[in-house]
């Protein structure tokens, strides 16, 4: 489980013994992990295990309160998500980070607007941004009525798709995805998995959180297991099978019993 | 710059516009308004009344009045510079102008026919003298609207003639009960205070209670009258009330301008008409009381 075996180049992102407290609440303690070039790190764990907290540290949304965070081998404390974004880290947050009253296309490009013209006269390339938004969503199997609809009026899954499409479109070095498929239909979820595989193949690092072992196992290279805010270990794919992983995630035998219970009494 | 207009030709449809710097609900200006309106009723002319303490807004109100082309304009000039343009415009449009209350010094210069009333400063000086006569030397002057030019001038006038110290105290006329607290606090904080000068009858009533609660023997005087104030004067709780006779500041100019419109009379001969100050003391409080009750004093 040491990282010595990794190549000489440092991983894109690495955390050592990282932790975070919210007031008196210890949400995360002593977690170490890393994600390198062309690698998919899956973060697994029960509800409330600290996965989103972990991701918020990586993406600069929350500063960590213990341990170290290294980007390209250099220690950093992100003061804001902007700093992480500038390092090429794009994130899909569990709460999606959208502005409900704004049109879909404005949300898509928010913070990375495309402009035309120079200096004080530069103005938004509205047409171009509308078109790209529509196209990128269509690629995910979402056929929007109108990219000018406020994003708050989209369905849960449509909203999630916008957030994912945005991160994938702007992701430069690392893409971090917090339960990206939770509200998605079977088809859309499949597209997201495909995206993850593509990003990996293009040499991006991916951090992927999910509750679905069937989603995690096919694309993951390393598996970080969290429980009650602490790490149960960081496994390579070769070190674990999908069955073991599912057991670790769910507490084993219970699952088997379930199938029987569900049948009509 | 006295011009006789041919407004008389318009017969009985005479309109006279009054634009003051008093805000709605101000006790003093309310009586001015009553006076002007009563004159309108008595003389059968239309009187419109507007007021705003901000010179920009007052100018706008004057402009609006000019746009309705009245037969006469009555303006109070607390901040003469501020309304100069607007008054100039009226004069240029041939509308006869009379200034009231404040702005005596600029009245002629701006082309007004006459000035009626008396500045707040002079009224304040009168109050200061009376207080000095009563042997008072350390007075708090209760300003019930922060930064109000007229109120500041009253206090300045009193300070001018008192010969002792006058300290301004700010209260909020919208919360008379708390004004009472503040006056009481002032009395508690400085036991040497021997005079309280209020500038509003309601505040005067509160002040009389504050004196009682603070067990202070300070002398209380006020500007403007109400029936409660006259009662308190009779009860020896208030020494005197300065009465600038605001009613006549409203009534007289309307009368003058009506005469001018109907008859071409230009009254005043370019000289101001003084409307006060009168003092209401124990001697005459009785007579004043019934007028105060009607809202005409």
């Amino acid at each position, binding site marked *: 489980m040491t990282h010595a075996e990794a190549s000489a180049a440092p991983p894109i992102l690495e955390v050592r013994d990282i932790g975070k407290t919210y007031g008196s609440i210890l949400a995360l303690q002593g977690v170490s992990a890393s994600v390198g070039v062309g690698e998919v790190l899956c973060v697994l764990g029960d509800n409330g295990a600290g996965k989103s907290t972990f991701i918020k540290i990586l993406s600069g949304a929350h500063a960590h309160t213990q341990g170290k965070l290294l980007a390209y081998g250099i220690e950093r404390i992100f003061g804001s998500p902007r700093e992480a974004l500038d390092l090429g880290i794009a994130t899909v947050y569990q709460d999606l980070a959208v502005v409900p009253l704004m049109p879909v296309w404005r949300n898509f490009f928010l913070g990375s607007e495309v402009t035309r013209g120079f200096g004080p006269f530069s103005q938004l390339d509205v047409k171009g941004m509308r078109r790209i938004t529509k196209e990128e969503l269509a690629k995910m199997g979402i056929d929007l009525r109108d990219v000018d609809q406020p994003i708050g009026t989209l369905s849960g899954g449509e909203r999630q798709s916008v957030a994912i499409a945005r991160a994938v479109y702007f992701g430069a070095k690392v893409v971090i995805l917090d339960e990206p498929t939770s509200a998605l239909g079977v088809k859309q979820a499949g597209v997201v998995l495909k995206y993850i595989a593509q990003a990996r193949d293009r040499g991006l690092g991916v951090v992927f959180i999910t509750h679905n072992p069937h989603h995690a196992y096919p694309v993951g290279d390393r598996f970080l297991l969290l429980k*009650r805010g602490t790490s149960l270990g960081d496994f390579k794919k070769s070190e674990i099978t999908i069955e073991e992983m599912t057991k670790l995630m769910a507490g084993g035998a219970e699952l088997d019993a379930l199938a029987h219970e569900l049948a009509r009494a | 710059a006295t011009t006789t207009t041919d407004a008389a030709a318009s017969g009985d449809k005479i309109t006279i516009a009054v634009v003051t710097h008093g805000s709605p609900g101000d006790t003093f200006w309310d009586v001015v308004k009553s006076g002007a309106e009563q004159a309108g009723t008595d003389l059968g002319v239309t009187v419109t009344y507007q007021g705003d303490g901000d010179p920009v807004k007052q100018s706008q109100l004057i402009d609006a009045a000019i746009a309705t082309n009245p037969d006469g304009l009555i303006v109070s000039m607390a901040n003469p510079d501020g309304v100069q343009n607007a008054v100039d415009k009226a004069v240029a449009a041939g509308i006869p102008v009379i200034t009231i209350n404040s702005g005596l010094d600029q009245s002629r210069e701006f082309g007004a026919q006459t000035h009626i009333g008396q500045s707040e400063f002079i009224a304040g000086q009168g109050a200061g003298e009376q207080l000095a006569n009563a042997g008072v030397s350390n007075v708090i002057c209760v300003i019930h609207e922060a930064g109000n030019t007229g109120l500041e001038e009253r206090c300045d006038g009193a300070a001018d003639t008192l010969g002792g110290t006058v300290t301004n105290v700010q209260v909020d006329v919208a919360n008379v009960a708390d004004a009472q607290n503040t006056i009481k606090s002032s009395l508690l904080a400085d036991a040497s205070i021997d005079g309280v000068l209020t500038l509003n009858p309601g505040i005067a009533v509160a002040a009389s209670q504050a004196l009682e609660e603070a067990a202070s023997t300070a002398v209380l005087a006020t500007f403007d009258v109400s029936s409660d104030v006259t009662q308190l004067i009779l009860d020896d709780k208030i020494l005197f009330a300065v009465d600038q006779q605001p009613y006549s500041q409203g009534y007289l100019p309307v009368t003058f301008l009506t005469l001018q419109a109907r008859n071409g009379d230009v009254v005043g001969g370019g000289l101001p008409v003084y409307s006060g100050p009168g003092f209401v003391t124990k001697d005459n409080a009785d007579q004043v009381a019934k007028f105060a009750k009607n809202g005409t004093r």
Partner: protein
Amino acid sequence: MTLTASAVTDERIKPAGLIITLLRRPEVGAAVAALAIFIFFSVSTQAFLTPAGVATWLYSASLFGIMAVAVALLMIGGEFDLSAGAMVGTTGLIVGIVTTEWGVNIWLALVIALAIALAIGAANAFVVMKTGLPSFIVTLATFFILQGVNLAVTKIITGTVSIQGMSAVPGFDAVRVFFGSSFSLFGMDVKISIVWWLAITALATWILLRTRAGNWIFAVGGQITSSRQVGVPVMKVKMGLFMTTAGAGWLVGMLQLFDVSTVQATTGIGQEFIYIICAVVGGCLLTGGYGSAIGAALGALIYGMTLQGIVFAQWDNNWLKAFLGGMLLLAVLVNLYVRRQAGVRS
């Protein structure tokens, strides 16, 4: 392992002492700020801590406090009432006019004024809920309307802009026992309004924290859609809150009327923001869903102490507002600091 035990021994919580737990209440920051201002003026002025001095600032605080508590409930419920100040004037004027001008029985006059106040409160609630317009703008309109009506109607009926001769009305002294009297305590001349203030704060606190209505108030202010979805009677709650504020306006109107025995047409105008300030200084969120009645009462205490403290300190009066502003900023900063220390991030 019992459930309660598990809550205490959970390894995922840093042990926090009773003090920290206490410090998490929304009103604690305000309490510390109040204490600081109390000490400051006690030390720096002579009269502040004398019985007469204490009675003065307590009285001042009580008049703001009663309204501040009601306004705080309303704000927790997610609404504003900018007509609250003018309502104080309206109720006072109604009682004044119907008794002095029309000779109506004074007790009846009280009831009439209360009924009208409640009706206006209900109208506010009705318009806000039916149109979905922000209460800020609806009650602002009400405020303007009341302000105009107060002035114009008073003028028409009495010929002046204030009520005269109130103390000569039959029954005035009897009513005064409830609204304008005072009693001696520790050498202080305690006004009855202070009792009202304490009682209302206690009642409001109980309602907020221990009754179903209180739960609903927090809920409608925190997330109105969710509240509606789980079946909270949103309309009723808001209606109740607006009527409570209007009722408090009536109470303060009576307390003022029977204290100074006069009321002017401009009474209460501009006071509505002071109530909101007190509530916010006391820890209420402007966005609703969070706050406390005790906090609002403490906010009023801070305001009252500062207002009178500045007078006791005999600072140049022209600076009054500047001092007030500075104190206000200090109070909210102290509040914030205390709450940060307690690990609350609002």
